């Protein structure tokens, strides 16, 4: 069986080839020269809706469902088979799976550190800055500095603030970094040089 498109065009072709006088008549009444195929069909040659339906029925008789041919048939406007078209069920396609963030391992020491962090944050919120005295802060900062560097040297690099970066102001970071550099008598250009020589 030839394609439905080819078949539906067939009557037009026949008329154009075999009946030239009719062409003249139609073209005269419709001067548009851009669409010769349409103009070539004279009024009395146009199939009636019933003929069109019969033609489509005849075509569909030999067309299997869910084939390209059947789809092109039911897509046609006013096709008597449109209602018979199987409703396409949207298929679910999984494009990507994004795993959950890695679960943290909570050691007793981590729990203690987290509790201490919460306590410090609470003291800042309450503006009770004297709660954690400078000597205690120095001990904490020194210990954390060594711990982070030891991890980095062991190849266990991680983001120093992680998502908590969203809760620390850039000014706070600059104040802290400046104070750390000053504490060990380093200039900013020395830090820059060291970073350009190493992967730090």
């Amino acid at each position, binding site marked *: 069986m030839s394609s439905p498109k080819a078949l539906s065009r067939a009557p037009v072709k026949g008329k154009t080839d075999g009946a030239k006088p009719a062409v003249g008549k139609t073209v005269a009444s419709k001067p548009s020269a851009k669409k010769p195929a349409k103009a070539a069909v004279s009024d009395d040659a146009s199939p009636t809706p019933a003929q069109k339906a019969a033609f489509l029925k005849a075509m569909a008789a030999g067309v299997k469902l869910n084939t390209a041919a059947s789809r092109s048939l039911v897509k046609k406007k006013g096709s008597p088979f449109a209602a018979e078209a199987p409703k396409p*069920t*949207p*298929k*679910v*396609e*999984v*494009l*990507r*799976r*994004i*795993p*959950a*963030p890695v679960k943290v391992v909570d050691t007793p020491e981590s729990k203690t550190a987290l509790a201490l962090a919460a306590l410090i*944050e609470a003291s*800042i*919120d309450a*503006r009770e800055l004297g709660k954690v005295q400078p000597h205690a802060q120095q001990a904490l900062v020194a210990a954390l500095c060594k711990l982070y560097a030891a991890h980095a040297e062991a190849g266990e690099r991680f983001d120093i603030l992680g*998502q*908590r970066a*969203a*809760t*620390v*102001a850039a000014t706070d970071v600059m104040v802290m970094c400046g104070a750390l550099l000053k504490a060990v008598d380093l200039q900013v250009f020395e830090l820059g040089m060291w970073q350009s020589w190493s992967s730090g």
Partner: protein
Amino acid sequence: MAEQFVGKASEFKDGERQIIRIGEDEIGVFRHAGEFYAYSNFCLHQGGPACEGLTIARVIEPLREDKTSMGLHFHETDMNFVCPWHGYEYDMKTGAHIADPRVKLRKYDVVRKGDEVYVVA
């Protein structure tokens, strides 16, 4: 609109996401704190993959009585997801942009039938 099977709840870990396509729609299905949420993966800013970026707790800035800031903190329960292109941040429960809640991602209903999860699309 029909219910489309997207997977089993038991195979969908908490915090996990799936980007699926149903017909023409690309949808991000989230599981957060035991609940399922599904949104269009088409960012309202410039069409980026809105559901594929960072998930992060909402950052809040509580004020003291005298209206001074207590600094930035994470919200204890509210979660957001961030479009990876330019950082539009959407609320996990509503799909609304956190700065302007009138801007909302298209939300799809998620139906659970026993262990099976369906998205209505």
